[in-house]
């Protein structure tokens, strides 16, 4: 019962003593064990988590909890630095690397009493859209094991085939999405560079928030593309996302790109009036490859707003179609630069090769990075060469500006929020996903999410309905810069309308039948 709701109710239960932080932590830890086949976690910090829970328990006993996050079990994507707990980026390069410091966002959560259960799986250095390309192996989407999916997708005869039916989580924050989706934690941090939080959130049926660039500190987040990276928030409901955002947002003296203004945490209203809203439907998001199912959902969602009295208009973001190729250039260029520090000297993997410093570098980087990372480093360096810089990097920057200006124009014309699909389709089976290479996949999968990163805008994916195959589908809202309150308010209203069904997992039931009550599966369709 406790797991099925937002953590604010759990927080109340903790306050009233109906459950203790240690109990809560232990339940999550044992659920992590029983769902370990999902491969959502790469490190489970059982010992420190129990210690943190114990501390939290003391505070509750004294009647002095640190806030609503005190005692709440959380998980963090393994590309955030955590002092004393391995930080690997799912790469051989950082296998065994223990950071001496906490990322600002991790520190802020710990300072508010959150209990850190462990680090979640991802694509190596967050480069991917499936959470399939890390050294710890792919993450399995919890919905693959849900009653809903099993009923709609009957196993093809043999048990061997059932094994191959499991679907991917999306990525690159697939571990975090799976962790929240499978009830092993209440909140997880992801990172979002081109959609890495929203994409797996959509596939795993959870809320995925990418805040405005500069609102949350990146200090301690191992970068992919510095100018687009944002820590992402994965929760079960919009209210939770608002609380976590409030606890993380604001200036960080350690990150010069964070806003100077102080951020005022907000609560979302319960009664929401959407009548004065103008919702924009960008026609370019009706992209090639968009499944008819999602298209239908999208237009139903638009109708929902229209029926509630909101103004819904079609808008155009004409440069969206250049976004993928532009992103490719900017992303690989920054990757090439950011990865230069991994040379085996100060930390991380070092090849057993001492013929010369150069040969040691080469062997270290050959052994430390997978093909995807090396491929991006190579193309990034190519784009940055003197003879190519103007033709690629500068052009890509100009296109990025055009993409950002598209949004400025649309928002300037009176649109409050954009409504789009998050993904082109529901999650595909792993066996199908790996037929295409990482680059092709990333290009396809980020297509609807990436533009928000280019423009630095806040965006959120809300689980909307189940597909015919019984898998989650999410829709995305994109808001004005630093207007998270409006964005989340609209998202909360939408969340209420669609009544997304609860995942029905055998493991969870078996594990915790006494307290687990499932909600009725009600689709808004």
């Amino acid at each position, binding site marked *: 019962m406790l797991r099925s709701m937002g953590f604010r109710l759990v927080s109340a239960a903790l306050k009233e003593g109906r459950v203790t932080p240690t109990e809560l932590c232990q339940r999550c830890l044992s659920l992590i064990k029983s769902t370990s086949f999902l491969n959502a976690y790469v490190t489970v910090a059982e010992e420190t988590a129990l210690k943190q829970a114990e501390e939290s328990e003391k505070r509750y006993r004294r009647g002095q909890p640190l806030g609503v996050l005190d005692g709440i079990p959380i998980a963090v994507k393994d590309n955030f630095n955590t002092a004393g707990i391995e930080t690997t980026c799912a790469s051989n390069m950082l296998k065994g690397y223990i950071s001496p410091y906490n990322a600002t966002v991790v520190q802020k959560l710990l300072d508010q009493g959150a209990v850190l259960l462990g680090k979640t799986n991802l694509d190596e250095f967050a480069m991917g859209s499936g959470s399939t390309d890390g050294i710890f192996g792919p993450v399995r989407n919890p919905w693959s094991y849900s009653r809903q999916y099993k009923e709609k997708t009957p196993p093809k005869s043999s048990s061997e085939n059932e094994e191959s039916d499991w679907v991917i989580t999306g990525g690159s924050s697939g571990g975090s999405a799976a962790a929240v989706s499978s009830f092993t934690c209440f909140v997880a941090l992801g990172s979002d560079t081109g959609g890495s939080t929203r994409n797996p959130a959509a596939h795993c049926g959870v809320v995925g928030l990418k805040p405005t660039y500069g609102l949350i500190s990146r200090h301690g987040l191992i970068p992919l593309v510095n*100018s687009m990276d944002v820590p992402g928030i994965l929760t079960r409901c919009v209210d939770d996302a608002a609380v976590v955002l409030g606890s993380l947002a604001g200036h960080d003296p350690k990150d010069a790109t964070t806003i100077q203004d102080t951020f005022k945490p907000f609560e979302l209203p319960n009664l929401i009036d959407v009548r004065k809203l103008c919702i924009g439907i960008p026609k370019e998001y009706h992209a090639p490859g968009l499944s008819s199912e999602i298209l239908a959902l999208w237009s139903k969602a638009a109708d929902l707003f229209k029926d509630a009295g909101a103004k819904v208009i079609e808008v155009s973001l004409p440069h969206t179609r250049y976004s993928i190729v532009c992103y490719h250039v900017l992303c690989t*260029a920054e990757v090439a630069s950011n990865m230069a520090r991994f040379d085996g000297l*100060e*930390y991380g993997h070092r090849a057993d090769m001492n013929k010369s410093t150069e040969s040691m570098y080469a062997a270290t980087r050959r052994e430390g990075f997978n093909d995807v990372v090396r491929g991006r480093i190579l193309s990034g360096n190519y784009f940055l060469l*003197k003879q190519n810089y103007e033709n690629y990097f500068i052009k890509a920057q100009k296109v990025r500006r055009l993409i950002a200006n598209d949004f400025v124009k649309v928002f300037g014309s009176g649109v409050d929020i954009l409504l789009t699909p998050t993904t082109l389709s529901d999650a595909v089976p792993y066996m199908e996903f790996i037929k295409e290479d990482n680059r092709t996949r990333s290009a396809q999968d980020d297509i609807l999410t990436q533009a928000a990163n280019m423009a630095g805008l806040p965006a959120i994916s809300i689980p909307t309905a189940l597909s015919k195959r019984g898998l989650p589908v999410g829709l995305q809202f994109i808001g004005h810069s630093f207007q998270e309150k409006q964005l989340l308010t609209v998202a909360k209203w939408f969340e209420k309308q669609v009544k997304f069904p609860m995942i029905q997992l055998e493991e969870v039931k078996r594990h915790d039948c006494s307290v687990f009550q499932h909600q009725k599966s009600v689709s808004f369709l």
Partner: protein
Amino acid sequence: FCTRGSSAPEGAKQGSRACARPATGHRGTAPRGLASWVPVVGLEIHVQISSNSKLFSGSQVQFAAPPNSLVSFFDASLPGTLPVLNRRCVEAAVMTGLALNCSINKKSLFDRKHYFYADLPAGYQITQQRVPIAVNGSLSYSLCIDNKMSQMVTKTVRIKQIQLEQDSGKSLHDDARSQTLVDLNRAGVGLMEVVTEPDMCCGEEAAAAVRELQLILQTLGSSQAIMAEGQLRVDANVSVHHPGEPYGVRTEVKNINSVRFLAKAVDYEIQRQIEELENGGTILNETRSFDSKLGCTIPMRDKEGKQDYRFMPEPNLPPLILYDAKSLPVNMNHQQVVNIDWIRERLPDLPSVKRAKLVELYGILPEHSFTLLNEDGLAEYFENVIKQTQMKPKKVIGWILNDLLSYLKQHALTVKDSPVSSFLLADLLNLLERREISSSAAKQVLEELWKGEGKTPLKIVKEKKLELIQDQKELEQICQSVMAIKVGNQKVLNKLIGLVQRATRGRSNPVLVKQILEKKLSE
């Protein structure tokens, strides 16, 4: 061991300081070329900013600290760390830019310059390649013609730009064990790279310009600018061409760690290029290292081949915005903004202004004003003496330059460490000025004062009985005894005065002695 940026012993003797300016004359007779080469010299000067902490991290800056004791997570490039710009370094750069007559860019940008090197942990250096903090300035410096202090000319070199950037760490190569040891204490220390236009034509000009820059930096306090400690490092770009023709291929000379070696390295390189071209050879666009022991430049092997630095904007630092009185936002926290006008108003007198003031105020020779400013604290010392003595500045300067300075030089002391304070020297000069002692006695007192035993000049005078003998009777007696030797000869008057002085060990009042002797001789 081989360390970068450390000082080499100044073993080699200074060669001729003659300028390698194109020789004139011999038109038609000398082989074409020899007489008509125009050397072109430009400088890239890396200046370590005097600041408590590094450019982008909170690590302390300190010379000769134990290896790797001043390294933050950012300096070691731990993943996830971000640069945070040090305001003090920005102010130092603005100050320097203003002092060098630059226009200060109100918006400047940071870039990443990529190359793999063991002492560059991030694999890139953060610098200002596209839009530096200051551009289009000038530096005036003086140098003497034919080594004569009395013939000084003022020249100007244009400053192309000043950019803020990170210093690298230091690599120590242990060839015996084929190991490289890395010290990151210096990694991330703030540098200003001052780039000049190629406006100089010989080693002496380059040296004079750098010396003047050094003085300016020290006056501003923006750098200690001590070359031996690597706080000021000069790379020289040198080429030669025939008049009216495009510039020749240039070489870059590195590893120059004193102003004297700069002059030597540049002149050597000019001569080498001329000889190479005269002999039908070509100049390669290469980096050469100055060997101070051999006094020559040699190609640097590890700098062979063209590097593509793959410059890219630094995405973790927003544009650096500076304000002036007009653009200063009203509600801005003043701790967080750098106001160019505020800095301009507080600029101290620059060396050139100080020299002019010294010449004007005290009537000393221009070349003396150069000497006064060349030694750290000497001008202040001079002015302090002036304040405490009735002696005329023109006379004081002699004592400062001839006596004080040569003593300090002999004993390798700085002005600050002088055993004779300005107060003591003034005291001594006052005795002289009041004619209580003669000038040769004053020199004897000074000899005693150097010992630094804490005695006052007056005490020394008393102890050594060096007072000027003013007593008529006493002097008459002495004169009488002198005259006993030489009687009646008017022409030997001067010789007689000398004898009196010898008899009194220089303590007798010469005027009085002369009167007495004249009187006696005419008796």
